[in-house]
């Protein structure tokens, strides 16, 4: 039985704060930072927004696009590293707001930035095993950026949702296969009562991000006997603009294959939403028959690789609000306003 994506949705809060604004407060050279990270501004949640509202917005768009009956959603998983509660799942609130009903499988997920793609694997498995007709997999975050820390320039807010179902439903893209590559690598973590995460500086690169993205992607390619040129688009997790470009080149993908996915250049790192938003943006302009490869990365660490084949039905989907529309709809904040929005001052 073929499983596939029935619909998808995205949401990016409209507020932005620039690298220049943040750097100015800390007395740093904004141009140099922007150049190093390839990020010149990031998205900031509104005062009343959080992972639940973002997950809901993205899911609603996914359902509305295809006028989907929420009662057919039999599984719903929200992956995030900023669930509003340590105990009380975000997923149930999102499900209730969507009108999913009571007969559905759910739990909250955490695996740093790959909680969303892990949700996609779980939902895909529920559908493949026929325990669920369809399911929603959502990655959403309002990432915590410690004031004055290097990650403050990229920790952003946003999310995307994927409605996955059996072949009883029309697919806009089939899910061809998925693999994972995981290890115990403490490159980035947040303790139980910690407000902000810690990271091991340069250690987040070679032994963390690059090792796992490489591991999952090459495992996938070898397992299925593919090479990078077999794909029309590729998406990698985007902690900044530099890492996905570097790993793409190292794996043998071209800039052209990567370019549509690079939401990070405009909105920063949306953590659990990152690779999923990249996928959404690629789908916004994909052509029937396109083959897409996506590898997420979550600190701790692990990577999930998926491959998709776009169907003819994609063209019907390409109306309405796109990821680019969300990117372009923006209001700039001063550092003080940004601090108020993210709870540094209250």
């Amino acid at each position, binding site marked *: 039985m073929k499983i596939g994506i029935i619909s998808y949705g995205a949401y990016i809060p409209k507020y932005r704060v620039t690298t220049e604004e943040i750097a100015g407060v800390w007395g740093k*050279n904004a141009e*140099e930072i922007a150049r190093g990270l390839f990020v010149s501004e990031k998205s900031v949640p509104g005062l009343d927004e959080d992972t639940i509202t973002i997950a809901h917005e993205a899911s609603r768009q996914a359902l509305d696009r295809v006028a989907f009956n929420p009662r057919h959603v039999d599984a719903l998983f929200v992956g995030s590293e900023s669930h509003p509660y340590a105990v009380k799942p975000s997923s149930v609130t999102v499900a209730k707001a969507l009108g999913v009903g009571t007969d559905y499988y759910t739990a909250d997920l955490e695996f740093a930035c790959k909680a969303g793609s892990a949700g996609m694997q779980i939902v895909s498995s529920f559908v493949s095993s026929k325990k669920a007709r369809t399911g929603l997999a959502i990655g959403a975050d309002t990432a915590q950026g410690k004031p004055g820390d290097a990650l403050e320039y990229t920790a952003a807010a946003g999310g995307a949702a994927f409605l996955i179902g059996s072949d009883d439903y029309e697919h806009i893209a089939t899910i061809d296969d998925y693999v994972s590559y995981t290890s115990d690598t403490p490159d980035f973590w947040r303790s139980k009562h910690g407000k902000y995460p810690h990271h*091991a*500086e*340069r*250690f987040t690169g*070679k*032994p963390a991000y690059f090792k796992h993205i490489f591991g999952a992607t090459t495992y996938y390619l070898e397992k299925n006997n593919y090479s990078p040129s077999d794909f029309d688009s590729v998406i990698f997790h985007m902690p900044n603009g530099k890492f996905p470009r570097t790993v793409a080149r190292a794996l043998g993908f071209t800039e052209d294959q990567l370019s549509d996915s690079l939401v990070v250049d405009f909105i920063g790192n949306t953590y659990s939403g990152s690779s999923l938003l990249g996928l959404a943006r690629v789908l916004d302009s994909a052509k029937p028959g396109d083959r897409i490869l996506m590898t997420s990365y979550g600190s701790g660490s692990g990577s999930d690789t998926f491959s998709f084949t776009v169907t003819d039905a994609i063209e019907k989907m390409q109306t309405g609000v796109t990821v680019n529309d969300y990117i372009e709809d923006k209001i700039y904040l001063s550092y003080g306003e940004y601090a108020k929005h993210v709870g540094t001052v209250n």
Partner: protein
Amino acid sequence: MTKFGEHFEKSLLDLSLEATFGALTSASLTKDTIDAIVVSNMLSDTLSGQGHLGALISGSLGLTVEAFRVEGACASGGIAVKKAVDMLKAGTHKNILVLGVEKMCDHSSSETTQALTNASDAEKEAFYGITFPGLYAMMARRYFYEYQIGQAELAAVSVKNHYHGARNKKAHFPKEISEKVAMTSSKIADPLRLFDCSPISDGAAALVLSSHEPQSQRKPVRIVGSSIATDSVSLQERKSLTSIKAAELAGKRAYIEAGISSNDVDVAEVHDCFTIAEILALEDLGFFKRGTAGYATMQKKTYYDQEMPINTSGGLKSCGHPVGATGVKQVVEITEQLQGTAEGRQVDNPQYGLTHNVGGSGATCAVHILTNTL
């Protein structure tokens, strides 16, 4: 020596054994011929909670020989080599393993920078918040004022060292850089920029010093002059900010012992912890007149194929600076030059080489002079 760089998967011991067996192999000796071990390391107690390195290395090799560690901040390596030389001269030992090793990358840069301030004066300097970039920045500022040079002279040092390092497989950053990159890199401690500062690196370098004829087929290299001199730890108590007296003295004494002058030196490894330090070194050692070494570097006089080759290994800047290993690595590089095996950066037929290893902002300097002539 091991490659210098980030070795997250190798421990202090892993690096030590790798370098040790490399040295034994190139000397065509087995470990049982070693009768003493001198270890050079600065930060192991502070950063890794590990002291007692002499026994750690000896025991790990399955040996029960005399083994101890020496420390003189970044000059630890040069000091370790001198102690081995002294022990050989005393006739108490015949084959001494000198091992310099450092693990610094497993910590945040602020932790490591803090640990490095152990090389400064705790009460007079570190207490007030100084760090090493700050100390050398003050020396650079004074040098700029006295000799009217600027950023470009400093950048020339960095560009040259990267040029050499790009030709050294063991370097931490084996990559050429442009003057533009060096001069526009971020400010670390004005006027020193990112590319004026040596990196934080892991690594180990080892030598076997013997008092008998070598077993290996390589050209024999001898140490013919060795000297250590000291001065105040704190910068503020020195007579001059634009020269390192300990280096001048150690250099002079080593030249006398070796029976040569600075003119006879064909290649040298000097302590470029910061680009300004290389400029001071060239003048302290008598290679260039006071105030002219920066300009000489800009004129490319210190490239490996020019009149006064300096830091063919890539120096501390490009080869890397695992603190305890550097002084030993310098001797390894000069040995390779004198044996004709410095592939890609070989000086033409050198006969005398010099190593210059400094601790702190100039409180200790160890100089060694090596030759392949009999």
